[in-house]
Structures are given as structure tokens and as C-alpha cells.
């Protein structure tokens, strides 16, 4: 029996922080939730979607009691078992990811408050009233100014500290609780990302409330190397946008080429459509080694740690602009500008300059001075063939390749004058440089790759930030009914099995009228393939958040707009209050919004936290094959698990037997398998018969296309009544169902997990 308690000082303080008195919605049960507050939701998720652990190592090496051997049910010297250790590492990874975005958010917010003051209004444009779905849902605050965002990010800082605390040797002893904490950290990641992107949109005046953002030139060939070239690497636009301003103000923008790799590129092109995108992280080392950049500006995250060495080798000047990554460089922030320029040009020194204005000015001046001294020639096929002849096809490069292929085979072909294989392989290459490092013959593999790497240029639509409320209103009904078969989000890093996979998947599903959203490196590579007409998916499909639309939301931090779109559907379309009402919203999305994330090239800790944050919100995520190295998935077993839900209308628990969505975090080995898994993970218990038959139509037709015919083995689990069966396959499906003695079931009126586990949320709360 629950006891009635007086409001505590702490609750009072939270109410103040979130301005509880402003009555835009009633304050829900979990304002600024702490570790225990959403734990029962997590435990419910983890009951169906059990953690699947693939230890990367037999040991724990995290304290001086160790190393501890954790094989064969052994426990560490602190009592820990192998599953708990995996979960602890996952929590650490999610915290590293979450703190990367929170650190970014905190920094950019500080920078923009410096510029605009804390009272700068948050205005996301005409069509976006629900400006901050994650922040509102998680914290209960409706942020109105940059200053409000600060209260939010401080809440994130605090939770990060408490969560990190729990990874200390000898505390948490349950993998389930570590998973709950990882889910908490990752939910906070979406909050941090949202803070960052809202601040950037407001502070840099990025376009917002518009779908048709400019087309940006992309590809290393798009960089005009006849001009001085400044390369931006990383995630934080403070310096890059300041640089654009500097060039504009000093009439230099015609004379200097600005290009970027990773998310800073995406950010910068939201600020200036004349900046170029070189490509994703996997092109970083390749491009740096070409020496085309005269000056490299690094900020934070996804920067190679050897960039000072590589820059020096390539004759490029380097400026580290953020304290996160200073590379041991001298901090020249307080130096005289001309003195820095002089030492950079004459002594070829690299510096850290933490003042964006100074960094921008120095970068421009140095680039203009250095450029004329640099020769920027691409290798010819003849030269490449000559260089390739050193290769003995010894296998060493294959043995160290994280993508497990033999660039040595490609090099061997080049030596014969055949460039076909290496061109294919360039698409597999994640650009890590291990092969060249290991090569006993010092074959200059990256240089040779220049002939393989297409100098072609592509178009990508500039990131546009949040989905508009108006769009949500349009698609809400078809999506929850299932007649738009799903929203598919392609996100994350560039550790691809094949870089072209993403474009292929986007094309397949956009054609089938799914809604496609993209961010980060995935948004880039989706544009790096052309169809027969020479068009990329950005040119081929509409930019609207609607059936068959292809929407680039922006950089990594714009991932918050993808989770945000799910929340908006629950709020705007289904009229569920979201304020501090996370559990209800997540339950709605899990059971009723056919959305699926695809992090095909997931590599970093941020990818771990972004994905895990989607999971807590009820959005399943598909990962590429290497992602089993994250050590943990969330899998159900469709035939063994409990698929009962509450029918909120009838108030009774119904055994649906329907594994929808089947998994929360899943690895597919091949693109083909992903093509079949994506439509399945878009199925929801809420689908109308019409919606379900559309979804099953895609599932079956994709299955036939990629799995060689027949019907999916688990099809019967998703057919409730014959009305669910797509017309074209009616006969085949009916015959199959009869064979296996399938029995029809009643669809659930209003499916929810609320009521199936101990929670303070009443069933009424899910009814809109």
C-alpha cells in the first residue's frame, strides 16, 4: 500500500526548475527523473527484450584486485560475474556517449549565451511549437530561452555523475540494474543532444521549420584545391560558424575553400550552403593524407587521435579548438594572432586555440599563406600501378583490417593495371589506416587508393533540424494505423560493411513509401550513390516527413529530432500529455508507432547511447554485423516469450502471441537480411487490418526479393485475421496458414504494457 507523502524540498526544487506553475500541461509523474524513477519500465522492457551478452574479453581489468578471469561462472575478486561486467561496460560506453553530447551541448550553450545572452528566445519557426519534445517529456520543462536549456543540461550533468558513480568497483551487482542505468544514461543523451541542437538552431540561426533546405556539394572531388583549403573535423560548430563569419566579413569567402568531415561538416553546411562536405569519418585519414587541406581545425569527438602526426606529414597546419582534444599542443589562446600565424607558417607548429574568433582568424591567415607553397597533385594510374608493384600479397593488411577484407588483393590487381577491385574495396574501407601501418613492404595504400576513390561529387540536402508539427499532424493517423508502413531512421557512424548499403536501403524503402530520416555519417553516405539518372536519393525523393520522403535532420545531435518525432506523434497526433510523462510516451511508441532505427555503421560510444536511448523510448534499432562488438543486444525469443499486453479499452490482459516489435537491439549480418528485418520491426500491435496488410505486403515482397522466395517463417505470428493478409499474396499465405494450422486472433483495441507490470502509471493515462 502506497503511503501519502508531503512534498519534499527536493520535489519543490524540481518543480521550481521546471517552472511547474506554468500550466501548459499538468506535470506528469517523473519530472527530471533519477535512476530509480523509470526503473520499473526498464525492467518490463528487459523482461521481453533480454540482454544478450557477447563478451569481448574473458577478463575484467578495472581494478587492482584483477585481472579477474570471469569464464565458467567465475566471479571477480569483487563478486562480479561476466554478465554484470558486460552490462557495466555498456553503461560506461553509454555514459561516454552521453557525456560527449552533453559536453558539446554545455560548451555550445555557453558560447551562444556569451554571444546572445541567456534570455535569447527559443524560436523554432512557424511550424514548430513543440520545440523540445525530449526535454519536455523527460524533464517536464518547456524551455523558452537559452538560459532554460542550461537548467536542463545541469540536470544531465548530475545524472551522469550518479551513473558513473555506480560503475565504481564493488557496487551494483545486477546486470539488469546496470542495463536500467544504461537506458537512463541514454535517455539523457537524447536530452543533451536536443539541448545542443536547439541552442545551435537558435544561436546560429540555422534554417528551421522548412523541409526544402539547400543542396550541398559533397565528395572529396568537390573541394576546390586551387584555393586555400580549410578542413573542419569534428562535431562542434562554434569555431566553424565563426570562421564562415570571419571569411564573409573580410571578403575572403570567395578566396578560401571551407570543407568538413563528420558532423562539423553537417553543422557548417546548415550555416552556409557553400561549404563542402568531404564525407564521413571513414574518409578522414584518406583526405588528410591527400594534403589538400592547408589548415585543419579540430574540435571534438570523432577526430582521429593521430591527426597532429598525419597533418605534419601532409604539410597541413593544425589548430585544436576545444579543450576536449588538445593533443599536447601548446595553448596559444592568449597569444598575439600574428605571432601564432608566424610560428605556424614558418616553424610549421600546431597550436591549441580555444577562442573561436582567434582560431578562425588564424586559420584563414595561415591557409592563405601556406596554400601557395603546397603542391596538391593527385596520383595518376600509372604512378599507382608502379607503387603497387611493391606488394607481395602477403596477407598482413587483411589480418589487421577491421572490415576483414584484403586490400592486398586490390593492390595486387592495381599492380596489373586493373582498378576494378580496389574501386569496390574503397567502398568497404573504413579508413582506419591499419593496413598501411602493418604492411611490411611499406606500400602506400592510401595514396594508391586515390585512383580508386571516385572524384565524383554528390548532392546532399542540408540538415534541417526538427520535424514540423504540421508534418506530424499529417502523418500521425496513417502511421499509427499502419498505412504509412513505418518511419526508418538511418543514423550513426561510418563503420559500414559496405558504404553503399545505406543508399540502397534508403532507396528501397523510400520507393515503398516509408518515411526516411537520416543523420550524421549515415545522412552523408546515403547521398554518395547515384541512380541510373545520376540522381542521389536526396534529389530523387521529396524532402518532406511524409510517405516516401527522405529527410536529413542534420548532425549527430539532430538525432534528438528523430526520437523527438516519435514523441511528437504521441503528443500532437494522439494528444497524450508528454510533460514529465516518459513512461506513457515510451509505451505509446513501443506499441503504436511503427518506427525503426538502423545504425548500420555504428562504431562509437555515442552510437551506443543514441541507440540505447531509442530503445528506452520503445524504438527498435538494427545494427551492422561488427556491432556485436558492443557486447550487448536486446533480443526476444518470439516463440518462447510472453507477448501479453493490456487492452486499455477493455481493461484486460490479452495474449497476442505477436512479437511486435520483435527485438530492441539487433544485429543483421548482411544488407539483404536488414532489408527483411526493417519492415518486420515496423509492425505494431496497433496496426489496423489495412495497415497491417500493407506492412506484411512489404515484409513478404522484400522477403521474396532478398531471401530467395517463399514466405517468412514467422509470418503467421503477424497475421491476426485474414484481413491482415495482403491481397497479392492472399492465396499463398492462406495455403501456408492452413498447413500450419494457424488460428485467427482478435486485434487488440488499445495495446499497452501499462497494467502488465508494477508501475505508478494508471491505465487511464494511456487513453487519449
Amino acid at each position, binding site marked *: 500500500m502506497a503511503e501519502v507523502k508531503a512534498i519534499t524540498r527536493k520535489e519543490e526544487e524540481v518543480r521550481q526548475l521546471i517552472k511547474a506553475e506554468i500550466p501548459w500541461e499538468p506535470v506528469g509523474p517523473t519530472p527530471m527523473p533519477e535512476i530509480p524513477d523509470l526503473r520499473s519500465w526498464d525492467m518490463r522492457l528487459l523482461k521481453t527484450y533480454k540482454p544478450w551478452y557477447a563478451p*569481448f574479453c574473458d577478463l575484467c581489468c578495472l581494478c587492482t584486485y*584483477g585481472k579477474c578471469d570471469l569464464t565458467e561462472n567465475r566471479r571477480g575478486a569483487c563478486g562480479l560475474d561476466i554478465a554484470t561486467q558486460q552490462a557495466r561496460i555498456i553503461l560506461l560506453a553509454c555514459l561516454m556517449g552521453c557525456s560527449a553530447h552533453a559536453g558539446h551541448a554545455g560548451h555550445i550553450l555557453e558560447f551562444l549565451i556569451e554571444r546572445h545572452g541567456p534570455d535569447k528566445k527559443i524560436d523554432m519557426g512557424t511550424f514548430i511549437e513543440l520545440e523540445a519534445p525530449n526535454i519536455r517529456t523527460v524533464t517536464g520543462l518547456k524551455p523558452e530561452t537559452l538560459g532554460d536549456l542550461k537548467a536542463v543540461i545541469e540536470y544531465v550533468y548530475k545524472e551522469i555523475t550518479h551513473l558513473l558513480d555506480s560503475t565504481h568497483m564493488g557496487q551494483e551487482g545486477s546486470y539488469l540494474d546496470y542495463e536500467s542505468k544504461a537506458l537512463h544514461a541514454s535517455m539523457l543523451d537524447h536530452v543533451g543532444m536536443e539541448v545542443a541542437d536547439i541552442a545551435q538552431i537558435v544561436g546560429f540561426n540555422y534554417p528551421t521549420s522548412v523541409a526544402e533546405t539547400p543542396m550541398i556539394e559533397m565528395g572529396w572531388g568537390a573541394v576546390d584545391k586551387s584555393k586555400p583549403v580549410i578542413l573542419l573535423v569534428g562535431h562542434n560548430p562554434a569555431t566553424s560558424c565563426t570562421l564562415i563569419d570571419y571569411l564573409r566579413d573580410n571578403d575572403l569567402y570567395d578566396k578560401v575553400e571551407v570543407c568538413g568531415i563528420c558532423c562539423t561538416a553537417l553543422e557548417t553546411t546548415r550555416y552556409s550552403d557553400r561549404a563542402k562536405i568531404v564525407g564521413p569519418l571513414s574518409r578522414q585519414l584518406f583526405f588528410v593524407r591527400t594534403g589538400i587541406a592547408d589548415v585543419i581545425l579540430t574540435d571534438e569527438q570523432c577526430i582521429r587521435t593521430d591527426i597532429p602526426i598525419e597533418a605534419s606529414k601532409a604539410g597541413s597546419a593544425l589548430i585544436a579548438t576545444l579543450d576536449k582534444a588538445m593533443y599536447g599542443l601548446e595553448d596559444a589562446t592568449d597569444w598575439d594572432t600574428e605571432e601564432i600565424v608566424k610560428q605556424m607558417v614558418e616553424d610549421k607548429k600546431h597550436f591549441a586555440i580555444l577562442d573561436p574568433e582567434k582560431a578562425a582568424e588564424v586559420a584563414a591567415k595561415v591557409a592563405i599563406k601556406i596554400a601557395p607553397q603546397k603542391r596538391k597533385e593527385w596520383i595518376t594510374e600509372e604512378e599507382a600501378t608502379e607503387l603497387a608493384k611493391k606488394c607481395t600479397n602477403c596477407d598482413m593488411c587483411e589480418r589487421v583490417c577491421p572490415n576483414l577484407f584484403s586490400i592486398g588483393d586490390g593492390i595486387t590487381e592495381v599492380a596489373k593495371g586493373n582498378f576494378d577491385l580496389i574501386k569496390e574495396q574503397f567502398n568497404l574501407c573504413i579508413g582506419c589506416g591499419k593496413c598501411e601501418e602493418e604492411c611490411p613492404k611499406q606500400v602506400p595504400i592510401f595514396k594508391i587508393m586515390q585512383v580508386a576513390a571516385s572524384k565524383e561529387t554528390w548532392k546532399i540536402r542540408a540538415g534541417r533540424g526538427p520535424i514540423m508539427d504540421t508534418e506530424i499532424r499529417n502523418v500521425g493517423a496513417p502511421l499509427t494505423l499502419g498505412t504509412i508502413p513505418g518511419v526508418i531512421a538511418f543514423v550513426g557512424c561510418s563503420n559500414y560493411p559496405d558504404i553503399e548499403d545505406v543508399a540502397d536501403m534508403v532507396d528501397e524503402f523510400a520507393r515503398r513509401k516509408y518515411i526516411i530520416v537520416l543523420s550524421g555519417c549515415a545522412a552523408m553516405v546515403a547521398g554518395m550513390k547515384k541512380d541510373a539518372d545520376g540522381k542521389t536519393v536526396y534529389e530523387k525523393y521529396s524532402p518532406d516527413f511524409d510517405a516516401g520522403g527522405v529527410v536529413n535532420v542534420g548532425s549527430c545531435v539532430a538525432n534528438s529530432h528523430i526520437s523527438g518525432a516519435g514523441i511528437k506523434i504521441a503528443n500532437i497526433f494522439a494528444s497524450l500529455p508528454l510533460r514529465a510523462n516518459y513512461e506513457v510516451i515510451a509505451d505509446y511508441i513501443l506499441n503504436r508507432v511503427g518506427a525503426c532505427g538502423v545504425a548500420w555503421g555504428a562504431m562509437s560510444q555515442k552510437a551506443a547511447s543514441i541507440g540505447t536511448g531509442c530503445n528506452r523510448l520503445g524504438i527498435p534499432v538494427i545494427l551492422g554485423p561488427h556491432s556485436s562488438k558492443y557486447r550487448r543486444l536486446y533480443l526476444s525469443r518470439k516463440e518462447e516469450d510472453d507477448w501479453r499486453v493490456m487492452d486499455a479499452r477493455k481493461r484486460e490482459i490479452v495474449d497476442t502471441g505477436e512479437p511486435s516489435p520483435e527485438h530492441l537491439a539487433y544485429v543483421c*549480418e548482411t544488407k539483404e*537480411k536488414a532489408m*527483411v528485418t526493417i519492415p518486420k520491426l515496423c509492425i505494431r500491435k496497433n496496426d489496423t487490418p489495412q495497415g497491417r496488410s500493407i506492412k506484411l505486403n512489404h515484409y513478404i515482397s522484400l522477403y521474396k526479393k532478398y531471401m530467395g522466395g517463399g514466405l517468412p517463417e514467422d509470418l503467421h505470428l503477424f497475421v491476426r485475421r485474414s484481413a491482415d493478409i495482403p491481397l497479392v499474396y492472399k492465396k499463398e499465405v492462406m495455403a501456408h496458414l492452413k498447413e500450419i494450422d494457424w488460428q485467427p486472433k482478435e486485434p487488440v483495441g488499445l495495446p499497452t504494457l501499462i497494467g502488465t507490470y508494477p508501475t505508478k502509471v494508471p491505465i487511464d493515462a494511456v487513453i487519449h
Partner: protein
Amino acid sequence: MSALIPFHRVNVLTGIKSARLIEDASEYADLIQKAKRPLLVLGPRLLEWALDGKLLIEYALEIAKAANIPICATAHVKGKLTELGVKPDSVYDAVEIVNALKDPDWKGVKRAGNHDLVIFFGIRSDLGEQSLSVLKHFAPHLKTMTLCKFYYPHANYSLPNFRKDEQWKAFLENLIDNLKKGE
């Protein structure tokens, strides 16, 4: 391996328990034939790799046939099998079949009880190794074996890193012969 584990375990370099390396096809055949309910898990690399023009998937099917081992087709392997006129006993992804195998009470693909020997063949080596890790740590009730031309530390039994494809080919042919003999 065990000779290389330091006396004091805290000084272990990394990893305590790693696969027995087996180069002799007859030893493999014995292990397979001793198993009561083996399972052959086929990965998509079998559709790409060939030895002297013969796709690896064909070797895999010969092995399955010779020892009457049920098949699990992962990823999009089923398509090719259909083409070859073979209906796999089960279709699961690598992570799914491993997830099922973890459960000692699982009925197995033949509904005759969980398997006691699981043979991996043709899975991307990183995913394969991670999948084997799951079973090594969480499925003490079964043994694992690999047929790819790489050493897999997390398996119970693994082939060595064959330097030459001929060695691999010889091993596989030998294995098939041995299994046939054993029938």
C-alpha cells in the same frame, strides 16, 4: 594454451579459455559423430567464397548430408539454399540462433532437445567470434566448432589459420570422406 597461462591468474595476458586447434579432419569427424544432436549454422560468406570454383555452401551441404546434421540458415543464406533445392531445417540469424542455444531447455531445430555441438561455417569472422563468445560464456551445456579457415579463439574446436586454400580444401574434403565413412 594452458601452458601459456601464467601461474598467478591475475597476471594473465588476456583470455583464459581458448579453442583447441585441430588440423586433423578425422578428429573433427570423430567429434561430430560423437555428438548426439549437432547443428550446422551456415553464414552468408559461404555464398561468396569458392574453392576452385566450387562454392563453400556446397561443401557445407555435403557435410550436412554426410553426417545427417540439421542446418540453420542465417542472414540471407536461405535464398541460395532454395535455389539449390535445399530446405533448411531452420532459419535464424546468427544472433538469434545463439540466443536460442543459450537456453538449455530449448527444443532445438528438430524439436528433439537442445543441441550438444554447434558448427559455425561462413559467418563474418567478427560476428562469428562474438557469437561463439556468447556460447562460451553462457552455454556450458554445449560445444562449439568452426569450419572457416581462421582460428576462432572463442570456439571449443577450431581450425588453424590455413595459409593456403588448398589446405582448407583438403581438410574439408577429408572431413566429408571421414564423415561418410563413419556412417
